[in-house]
C-alpha cells in the first residue's frame, strides 16, 4: 500500500503533533491578522504624513521609512525584543508575542504606507476638486473620496505585502513566540524528523496562501463593479 511513503513522510508521527501544528497555525493567523490591521492603520497615517508639504512632518517619516528598508527584519526584531524594554520601560509588561507584533508592524507599516501613498496620489485631482467644490473640508475629502478611491487602487500590491507579512511571522520563532514554525521546531527537536517537521510547516503556509488567493479573487471581483471602473471622460 502506501507504507513506502512512511520512509519519506511519516504522517503517523505528524498526526501525533497535529495539535501542536494546528495551534501554531492559529497563532500565525492571529499574529498576522493583528499585525495586518495595525500596519494598515499606521501605514495610512505614514502615507498621509509622507504626502504633507511640511518638511517637519514628511522628513522624519521619510527617514524612518528608509531606515526600515535599509535594515534586515531580523535585526529589527532583535532590537525590539532585546532593546525596546530599555528604551521604553512600559513595554516590559508586554509578552514576547506583543513585542513580536510590534516589530512586525514597525517593519510592515512603512511598506504598506508607501503602497497606500501611491494609491492616494493616483486619485484624480478632479475628484478632489469635486469634493472641495461642495464644501468638504480636508478631513471629509480624505474620508469620503481619497481614502476609499485610493485604497481600491492598491488592493493587489497590498495583498502581496500581506503575503510577505504572513511569511515574516515565522521569524518570531527566534524570539520564542510560539507559531507555526515553532511547532515544527518542537517536533524536530523531539523526533529528529526534519522532513516531516518542516514540510508540514511549509504546507501550513501554503494553506494560508491558498486562502489568501481565494480572498483576493473575491475582493477583486467585488471591486470590479461599475463603482470602481477607472474610466475618466
Amino acid at each position, binding site marked *: 500500500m502506501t507504507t513506502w511513503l512512511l520512509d519519506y513522510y511519516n504522517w503517523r508521527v505528524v498526526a501525533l503533533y497535529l495539535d501542536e501544528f494546528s495551534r501554531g497555525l492559529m497563532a500565525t493567523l492571529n499574529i498576522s491578522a493583528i499585525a495586518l490591521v495595525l500596519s494598515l492603520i499606521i501605514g495610512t497615517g505614514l502615507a498621509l504624513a509622507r504626502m504633507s508639504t511640511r518638511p517637519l512632518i514628511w522628513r522624519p517619516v521619510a527617514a524612518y521609512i528608509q531606515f526600515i528598508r535599509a535594515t534586515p527584519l531580523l535585526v529589527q526584531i532583535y532590537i525590539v525584543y532585546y532593546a525596546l524594554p530599555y528604551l521604553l520601560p512600559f513595554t516590559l509588561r508586554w509578552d514576547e508575542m506583543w513585542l513580536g507584533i510590534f516589530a512586525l508592524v514597525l517593519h510592515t507599516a512603512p511598506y504598506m504606507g508607501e503602497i497606500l501613498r501611491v494609491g492616494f496620489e493616483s486619485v484624480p485631482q*478632479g*475628484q478632489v*476638486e*469635486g*469634493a*472641495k*467644490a*461642495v*464644501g*468638504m*473640508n480636508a478631513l*471629509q475629502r480624505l474620508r*469620503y*473620496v481619497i481614502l*476609499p*478611491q485610493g485604497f*481600491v487602487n492598491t488592493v493587489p500590491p497590498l495583498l502581496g505585502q500581506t503575503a510577505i507579512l504572513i511569511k515574516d511571522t515565522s521569524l518570531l520563532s527566534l524570539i520564542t513566540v510560539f507559531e507555526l514554525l515553532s511547532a515544527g521546531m518542537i517536533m524536530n527537536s523531539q523526533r529528529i524528523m526534519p522532513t516531516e517537521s518542516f514540510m508540514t510547516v511549509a504546507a501550513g503556509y501554503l494553506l494560508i496562501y491558498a486562502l489568501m488567493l481565494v480572498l483576493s479573487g473575491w475582493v477583486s471581483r467585488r471591486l470590479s*463593479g*461599475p*463603482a*470602481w*471602473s*477607472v*474610466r*475618466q*471622460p
Partner: protein
Amino acid sequence: MADPAIDVPTASGTHAGLPSPQASEAPLAVIEAVSKSFPIAGTQRRHQALDRVSLALARGEVLVIIGPSGSGKSTLLRTMNALERVDSGRITIDGTVLTDRGTDLNALRARVGMVFQHFNLFRHRSVLDNIVLPQCAVLKRPRAKALAHAQELLERIHIAELAQRYPSELSGGQQQRVAIARALAMDPVLMLFDEATSALDPETVGGVLDLMKSLALGGMTMAVVTHEMGFAREVADRVIFMDAGRIVEEGPPHHIFEQPEEPRTREFLEQILW
C-alpha cells in the same frame, strides 16, 4: 483700485414674466482688481492669468464669460470659489470676503455651486449618493431629508430611474446633469459653470443647456464660462469678453454679438461663429 466703470445692471426685466429680484440690493459677488499668475514650467517666467480684473454680479444675474483659451476666464471662475487663490485683489461673495485670511472657505464653497467640464462626480458612489453625500457630510442634513431633496432633483433633471447607477454607466450629458443636481442640492446662492458642455457629445449638449436655461429662468445667479454662443445670446443678461487676463469688453448680449466695439472681440467672434 476701484473701477468706477463697473456697471451693475439692475436685474429688473431681464427675465421676462418673472418678478424681478431685489434689484436695488448690493451685488451678490464683487471682484475687485484681482490678479493671478502661474509659473511657466521649466522657466523663471510667470503667466499672468488674471490682470486686475474687476466685475460685479447682481442677484439673479446670468453672466456669460467668453474668450479664447488661455484668456483667464476659467481662472476667474475658479477664484470665485477659491479653487484658485488670488495673488492680489479682493473677492466678496454674498457678504463673505473670500480673499481674507481666516475666511472659512469650505463654508463658502458649500454655498457656491460649481459645475466642471469633466463633471468630477464621485465615481465610487451611485448617482443618488453623489447628491446625498455632500448634503449629509457638509450641511449635516438628516439623511431622510437629503434623500427626499435628491429624489426631487433627480426627477427635475429627468433621470430618477438612474438613481442607483454609477457615474461611469451614464452618458456625459446625464453625468453633467447629475453634477448640476449635486451642486443644486446644497441650495447655492451662486452657480459657476466652467465649460460645462465642452466635453460632451454634441447630442447630449442640448439637455444640459436646457437645464441651465431653466435655472436662469428660475432666478439663479450664474457665472458661465462657455463656447456656446447660442446659449450666451439667448440666456445671458451680460456677456464679458476676456483676453490675456483682462476684460476687454462687456455688455448685454446683443451689444457684444452684434455691435462689438473692440477689434479683438470682433476678431474672436468671427473666428468662433464661422
